[in-house]
């Protein structure tokens, strides 16, 4: 009933929208408004007629809470990251980065990885910053090393790790080393195998251009990046909430027995849970049935690859890039944490 009613409405509105079709953008605009209106109607219908009971199911309620929690928690860091990327775009001249980073890309990669220490935030902040770095002439390999290491090696996250694992400073050291190693290896891997055509051209970040107000450029870049990345953040939060509510505790226990499977399992869990890098140490500490190496894999993979991050990367750099890069990063991160964890833990 409801559906046919809406279909009729849609057809009618389509005709209305098509009528003043003298300019294409006008029609497209009308259509996007129509889409929004339709979506609103459908959502309201769901909420009012079908959804009331359904939205209040315990599982759905928990899903809504977790989804909102991930979004709210990430919001300040996303703002920090996009403001920083807008500022880099508008205020920092290209030559600054040329002077700061070694000229040879092979050397620039580890330097950029270590530079990740300065961005005190979680992973949401690093994606827009890396994007604007690339646009400002930093070699992509170095920007990716920064992107990967920044959320894992900054002092806030390392302190949280030390607090979560009292009495085992080896865990902090192993996390630092394995994260830096993964970031550097991925940077070099990009130098070796990466193709520029996988990257969506970062047209937005043209830098400061003469005759334009820097403040205006900053605000435009900031606003664009925030809205864009924010939309993808919501996609990621929804995915993470789904896994968070759907993965039952009993699954965890079946995997904790085998050392090899448990490493792979916790790495996969880090990808689907998308816990913020400032909190993942506490989650890892609570997974007490697993070996230290498996928990290290959780800590190294989590800030570098997770569903929220894949959504953000797909939005910023393009889907072709996000899929290849995340898959390769996950493999490298697991190998690095097994090697370094095997020695240190």
């Amino acid at each position, binding site marked *: 009933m409801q559906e046919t009613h809406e279909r009729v409405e849609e057809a009618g509105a389509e005709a209305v929208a098509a009528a003043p079709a003298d300019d294409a953008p006008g029609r497209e605009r009308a259509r996007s408004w129509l889409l929004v209106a339709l979506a609103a109607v459908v959502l309201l219908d769901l909420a009012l007629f079908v959804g009331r009971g359904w939205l209040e199911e315990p599982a759905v*309620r928990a899903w809504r809470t977790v989804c909102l929690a991930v979004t709210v928690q990430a919001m300040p860091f996303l703002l920090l990251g996009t403001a920083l990327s807008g500022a880099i775009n508008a205020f920092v001249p290209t030559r600054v980065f040329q002077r700061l980073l070694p000229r040879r890309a092979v050397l620039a990669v580890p330097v950029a990885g270590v530079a990740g220490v300065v961005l005190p935030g979680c992973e949401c902040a690093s994606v827009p910053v890396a994007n604007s770095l690339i646009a400002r002439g930093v070699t992509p390999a170095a920007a990716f090393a920064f992107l990967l290491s920044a959320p894992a090696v900054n002092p806030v996250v390392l302190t949280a790790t030390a607090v979560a694992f009292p009495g085992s400073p080896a865990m902090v050291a192993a996390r630092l080393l394995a994260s830096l190693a993964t970031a550097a290896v991925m940077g070099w891997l990009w130098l070796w195998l990466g193709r520029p055509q996988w990257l969506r051209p970062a047209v937005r970040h043209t830098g400061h251009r003469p005759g334009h107000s820097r403040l205006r450029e900053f605000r435009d870049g900031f606003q664009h990046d925030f809205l864009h990345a924010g939309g993808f953040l919501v996609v990621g939060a929804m995915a993470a909430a789904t896994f968070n509510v759907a993965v039952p505790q009993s699954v965890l226990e079946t995997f904790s027995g085998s050392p090899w499977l448990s490493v792979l399992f916790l790495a996969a869990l880090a990808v689907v849970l998308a816990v913020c890098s400032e909190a993942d140490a506490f989650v890892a500490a609570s997974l007490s049935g697993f070996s230290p190496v498996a928990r290290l894999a959780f800590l190294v993979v989590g800030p570098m690859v997770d569903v929220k991050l894949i959504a953000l990367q797909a939005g910023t750099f393009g889907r072709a890039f996000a899929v290849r890069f995340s898959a390769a990063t996950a493999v490298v991160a697991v190998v690095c944490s097994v090697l370094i964890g095997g020695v240190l833990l």
Partner: protein
Amino acid sequence: MRRPAQAILLLLAGLGLLHASLWTDLCLRYVKEGMRPLLVASGALLLLLGAAEAWSSFRRRTPEGRDGQDHGDEHGHEHGHDHGHEHGHDHGHGHDHAGVPRVAWLLLLPVLSLLLYAPPALGSYTASRAAPETVSRQEHFDPLPSTSPLPLTLTDFTRRVQQDRGQAIRGRTVRMTGFVTPVRRGGGAGWYLTRIVISCCAADARSVRVRVYGAAAPPADTWVTVTGTWHPGGRLGTSSAPVAVDAHSVVKAPRPVNAYTDALPLPTTR
């Protein structure tokens, strides 16, 4: 997404964050107390950004603000072409890069949810599935104060039962507050007094729980204060001892504002 729509979205997002963090305690259902200043700052920043965008959209609509290419028509909202073009890209890529893609509309979902239909804090559904909080080891235990009933957190009670070789908890009447989580079907008698703790946001929730015997289970998710003594079993002071109480009384308690902490019970006014 057109410019005025961006302004509206930014303003709403700012309002949503301020609503959750400044005017109400909603944010405590999702994140830790420590995040609040950051959320207030973010909300204010988004409001500023939205206001600036609305102001410049408005300026562009008035005749003196127009920059020539604009064919605004009589309908206010149907005006002109996307202005991102003019100051974003006049170096020709064919399509509109400055326009924010539609995916940004998704931000409306959490924002409206915060403003109109905020989901509650996590409760018994999550507690029955979340990973149990690892209670860290404590080597030295101070003697317990002599007040009776003795207010304790669920974590402290767990430690006293499973780690304190001095067995100071034996025979003591304790008082703890938490919410009710039913035991799974076939899990035996009693129910759980539960707290959910988070270290960053509700996505990393873990639960602390104490089993309660000797009192009928109130409905799930009710906040209660339980007074009782340790439920004997195993060897007290080792992990064989059950983390459980025999309840003397179960009284309804107000839901704490900051529910994601393992706090002491509030003093009762009786």
